[in-house]
């Protein structure tokens, strides 16, 4: 029975191949603006600007203030598109698309 669960777990590709994706914040932009990831993958935002930023999708995720030179990571779970913005700088927008 337990062995069956294990086999099922190992068969899930998302768990076997969780990857890390970088979103660079530079020049008051999220680069790339749209990042496609798999469920279980980790997204790391790195702030290379001189000013603090956030990566915030209301009700989904919120980095809070990332200092210049700082970073924040988030693990994607639910499938779908998460549009996010910097709460400090409303012109800065990005999206994370989560696939299976």
């Amino acid at each position, binding site marked *: 029975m337990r062995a069956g669960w294990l086999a099922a777990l190992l068969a899930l590709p998302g768990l076997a191949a969780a990857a890390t994706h970088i979103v660079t914040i530079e*020049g*008051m*932009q999220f680069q790339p603006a749209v990042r496609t990831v798999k469920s279980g993958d980790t997204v790391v935002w790195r702030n290379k*600007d*001189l*000013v*603090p930023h956030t990566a915030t999708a209301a009700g989904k995720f919120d980095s809070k203030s990332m200092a*210049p030179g700082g970073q924040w990571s988030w693990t994607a779970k639910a499938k779908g598109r998460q549009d996010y913005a910097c709460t*400090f*700088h*409303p*012109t*800065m927008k990005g999206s994370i698309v989560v696939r299976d």
Partner: protein
Amino acid sequence: MRTHVFLAGLLAGSAVLAVHAQPGPTDPQIAHIVVTANQVDIDAGKVAEKKGSTKDVRAFGKQMVTDHTAVNKSAAALVQKLHVKPEPNDTSASLKKGGEENLAALSRLKGKEFDQAYVDHEVAYHQAVIDAVDKTLVPNARNEELKALIVKVRPALVEHLEHAKHLQAELGK
């Protein structure tokens, strides 16, 4: 009316910046202009953070304090590293004077009038500083790291300008 007085002050400031395009400021003078330009906007932001009549105006003022303080921290670290001693000059003096006049004018206003005057000034100020960056500061900066810092700050100035224009449109409704 008061807005026009602010704008006249700003334009006078821009004229000084333009005059200095030839022969152009030295690196120590550029460093002083950068630090002063940030400080002027920090001082105005501190007032707006308290006196702004809407949440958006107060948040914008707070953001100006945060961002321009962060930029000045980087600028201070760089001039220390480069052993550049910021040198007061006519352009930085003009920016400082314009900033003081703006604060004096803002101190006489409140409510919606304050919001409008502060945001109008922020739009004009950021535009004037972007113009100075493009026409005077970047072309004249000799040290590559000083030039790179100014280039790196520019997108933040543009974002602030867009943000301020958005607020201006909201206030105009």
